[in-house]
């Protein structure tokens, strides 16, 4: 990048130009992609487990608290709304990445905050759904194997969202410092979009396919 560009974007640091690696890709970015590839395997295992048990809640007397399938309790309109919220957060995230590339820190902060708020709203929706299942439908984590697989899968995704929100808020705090690395925002964005992409799979496979 030319010196002129650095003068224009003095608050934004582009590490691609500062150091090179043998792959031509920064270690942080490559590391995040390798992590995401390994996370595909983790979520693949959880989704497969749910698929195997979703119609097999089991009827072992004394061990099964609720023999109903989890899918009998789904509230599709509500889950569709939370899915839309997460989809919208992917848009705000990518707008944030574009803003930091342009060197527009004000909009970066706006989009990071929006993404974190949308992520928190999604989590609120998930907590509401879980509470509803446990309190109104008597379907807890140990009620039957299908419910265990469901809570483990969607709960693990929820934990990923929590980590994502923490990363977004950290980026927001860093943006108020002297310099922010554009690629750091991009790497956080990669993680956030992956969380969205996993929900695209979960929403279809778990909630919509009968």
């Amino acid at each position, binding site marked *: *990048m030319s010196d002129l560009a650095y003068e224009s974007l003095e608050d934004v640091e582009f590490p691609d130009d500062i150091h090179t690696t043998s792959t*031509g890709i920064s270690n942080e970015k490559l590391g995040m992609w390798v992590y995401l590839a390994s996370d595909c395997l983790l979520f693949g*295992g959880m989704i497969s487990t749910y698929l195997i048990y979703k119609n097999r*809640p089991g009827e072992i007397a004394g061990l099964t608290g609720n023999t109903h399938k989890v899918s009998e309790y789904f509230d599709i309109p509500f889950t569709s709304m939370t899915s*839309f919220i997460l989809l919208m957060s992917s848009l705000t995230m990518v707008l944030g990445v574009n803003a930091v590339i342009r060197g527009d820190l004000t909009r970066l902060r706006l989009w990071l905050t929006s993404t974190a708020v949308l992520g928190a709203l999604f989590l609120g929706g998930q907590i509401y759904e879980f509470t509803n299942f446990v309190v109104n439908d008597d379907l807890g984590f140990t009620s039957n*194997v299908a419910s265990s697989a469901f809570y483990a899968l969607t709960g693990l995704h929820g934990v990923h969202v929590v980590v994502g929100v923490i990363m977004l808020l950290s980026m927001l705090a860093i943006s108020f410092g002297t310099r922010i690395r554009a690629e750091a925002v991009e790497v956080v964005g990669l993680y956030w979009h992956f969380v969205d992409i996993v929900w695209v799979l979960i929403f279809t496979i778990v909630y919509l396919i*009968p």
Partner: protein
Amino acid sequence: MSAAVTELDDDSPVNPGEHHTHGLSDGQYFKVFFLLVGLTALEVSTYWWDDIFNADTKKIAVPVLIILMVIKFFLVALYFMHLKFDSPLLKRTFYVGMIVAIFVYVVALTVMNFWSDSGTTEFNNPPIDPPAPFCATSSKPGPCPAG
């Protein structure tokens, strides 16, 4: 200013001179987003197809849902995650992980009788009548004859 930024990765020692951009403009991202919203709305509509068409639409809805899910997956991966514009090494890393995951879990689902027997609620229960032990000295199945 932005032109300088789009040339960030052009010094790659692996693929010298290869052109990388950093994705789409804000307006183009909005177009991708609205496409995703439309696909999601179509997905959600399948929930009411049985009532709307007054018929069992499962055989049509399931393939439609899977196709829409795959399209949405790749729209997010290619455009929002910049995979379309990034280094081939990153594409290979992600796709290899994904393909290995799909292969491993299709095998796992197959060995667990998912495709043929996923509706049996008694799958996890202990067997009601355990099979009789095998007798090596008898040609008939079941326990060894007395004496």
